[in-house]
């Protein structure tokens, strides 16, 4: 992505609260207009801090944030024109839903009639048209969530930030709201920066995902690339399910490499992703659905594994195997009616070398 295209730009951002430990390290991130970008990571990875810097509640220790090519570090939060949905909604309990929504318009000195119109429009958008006179405490969690969303959008901000907005909802409602937010985004085309620690939420909603760990963006990609082609072992483990095998690089042939597994468990041909030289230690990553059972794929890696546990899940059977000394090796077997092994059986496993990624350790 080139610089002219980027609407929000983080340039060499460092952030430290105590002057010693950096919670965000050398962050470079470009977001283009209309994009839905998610910052995903475990707690303490620096994603919320990054969001707060964008909102103006924290100042970067080093570096500069640009919004629409303008540096914004010196602009106070109330002049940034950035909407935000807070973790616990932060609806004002002493105001009705209407008053909550009218608040940002009122402080902008927008006329009463226009305010009324915009408030109603925003409420209709989140399907709460008839709830204007209620107080936040009289609404359910999902409704409060929608009010918070409407309030963040009603003053037509340049950008909307969301800080784990669905964290307080139960699972079904969360999924429903994910689609709803996504649809609203599609409809009005606003730029969204979303923070979550829930990977399925990130995969569902985002155009691109920035995976945070330890204050550093580990990978910034579209959801499919993130899942299919993780750049390092953290991303591989954090997104989706993942089997790992440890070993040492034996030879490198262009884009592939041969890895000797630890404890002389055999050799594996894998994609060279994050290894550079022979003799380097590596962690191999294989997705559970990419492992075949009882099929002979030419040129593939073949191994045998003992069945430790079988779990029937309807559409597929989840098998936990002992493969090359790793007894947490998961294989998802599609339920095609032909699987008739029992626990304790030894299976023939095979996988394509393109599906194994040699990553850092």
């Amino acid at each position, binding site marked *: 992505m080139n610089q002219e295209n980027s609407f929000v730009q983080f340039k060499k951002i460092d952030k430290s609260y105590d002057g010693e430990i950096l919670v965000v390290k050398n962050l470079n991130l470009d977001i283009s207009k209309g994009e839905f970008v998610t910052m995903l990571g475990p707690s303490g990875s620096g994603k919320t801090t990054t969001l707060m810097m964008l*909102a*103006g509640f924290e100042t970067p220790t080093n570096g500069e944030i640009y919004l629409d090519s303008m540096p914004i570090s010196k602009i*106070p939060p109330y002049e940034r024109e950035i909407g935000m949905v*807070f*973790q616990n909604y932060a609806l004002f309990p002493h105001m009705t839903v209407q008053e909550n929504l009218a*608040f940002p318009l009122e*402080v902008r000195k927008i006329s009463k009639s226009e305010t009324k119109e915009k408030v109603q429009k925003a409420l209709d958008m989140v399907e709460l048209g008839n709830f204007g006179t209620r107080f936040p405490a009289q609404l359910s969690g999902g409704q409060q969530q929608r009010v918070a969303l409407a309030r963040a959008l009603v*003053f037509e901000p340049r950008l909307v930030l969301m800080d784990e907005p669905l964290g307080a909802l139960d699972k079904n409602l969360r999924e429903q709201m994910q689609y709803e937010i996504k649809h609203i985004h599609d409809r009005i085309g606003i730029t969204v920066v979303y923070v979550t620690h829930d990977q399925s939420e990130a995969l569902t909603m985002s155009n691109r995902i920035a995976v945070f760990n330890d204050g550093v963006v580990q990978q910034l990609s579209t959801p499919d690339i993130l899942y299919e082609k993780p750049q390092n072992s953290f991303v591989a483990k954090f997104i989706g399910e993942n089997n790992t095998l440890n070993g040492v690089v034996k030879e490198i042939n262009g884009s592939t490499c041969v890895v000797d597994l630890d404890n002389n468990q055999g050799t594996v041909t894998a994609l060279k992703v994050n290894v550079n030289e022979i003799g380097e230690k590596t962690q191999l990553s294989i997705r559970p659905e990419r492992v075949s059972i009882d099929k002979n794929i030419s040129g593939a890696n073949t191994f045998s594994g003992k069945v430790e546990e079988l779990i029937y899940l309807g559409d597929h059977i989840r098998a936990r195997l002992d493969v090359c000394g790793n007894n947490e090796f998961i294989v998802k077997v599609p339920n095609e009616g032909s699987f008739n092994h029992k626990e304790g059986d030894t299976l023939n496993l095979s996988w394509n070398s393109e599906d194994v990624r040699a990553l850092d350790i």
Partner: protein
Amino acid sequence: MLLRSVDDSQINTVFPNTFEEYKKWDKEKDELPPEEVYKALFQELAYGEKVQVGRALTRMNYSKSGWKSLIKKTSRAIKKVVKKDEFPDSYKEFFIETNEKWADPTYWYAMGQMVNNQTSIYYWNAIDRTFDQELNVVQQEEDRRVYVQTWLKTLKVSIYVTLFCLILGFPVAHLLANLPLRYSNLLMIFVLLPFWTSLLVRTTAWIVMLQQKGVINGVLVWLGILSDDGRIAMVYNETGTLIAMTQILLPFMILPLYSVMRVIPKSHMRAAQNLGAKPVMAFWRVYLPQTIPGMSAGGLLVFVLAIGYFITPELVGGKDGKLIGSWIAYHLKTTLNWGLTAALGAILLGFMLIFYWLYNKIVGIDNIKLG
């Protein structure tokens, strides 16, 4: 206890016949009561129980001073007569002979307010009113008017103390609720330590601080801000009462405020700013309204405590810093005028109920929150 403020039955049990005859007296026609009244009074004084009569006399003195000594003197004369068994022909003449005050109708008029079992005199007394000869309500003589002025002062001081507590307590409570834990804990100790200290100790400490040769004046003189003979009188007056009461009642404001502020999420101020409100605006529109339950609870608590406060104003208030509580204590313990004590107390209670009602009208009692 409140019944005492209207109860007048005690004297009626001592002088039942006298009052019975008294009611027959036609004040238009005769200047003085008829012979029967004097006779009844003679008999009831002669054979009445001494302690009971004594109490009745105290009561009579409330309606007109001079009653007590007059009747005591007369009683002695009556006792002599009874001893000698020489009953007079005309009791009226006997009374007037004994003491010419018996010919003064104002004494008899004052008796009129006691003939019923109930009286409102204590309430009227509590607002500087009394009865005249025809039992009309009139102002007390000028040198006996103290209560109205004291009531107003009590209200004024209570309102000021509540306001000062709010002004001083709000920032402290805000700091308590928002500082990092180790600082806020220390601050909490500073709030609670005086709260746990004896009221008397704190009040006397204020005397040490504020008196003319006290710490504050001393420092100001030492700094050259005041000249030695320009020392400010800060104690034994209303200023002293205000300062000491504010300090003593401050925790009652801080604690409810704190407990309310503590649960206001910090994200609210951020949200308000994010929505475009400057910090002052965000505070005014979002933070302050949410502290109303705490302000109300603290305000009501401080006001109710202040309006009935007694030890501190008594000690640091001097002559013009005394509040109604001091008068209640004075009448309860010194003059033993329990009727007036009860009336003052009842009015105080009434005030509080009125304020409570007003408060409920304006803010709503459901809005009160101690945490």
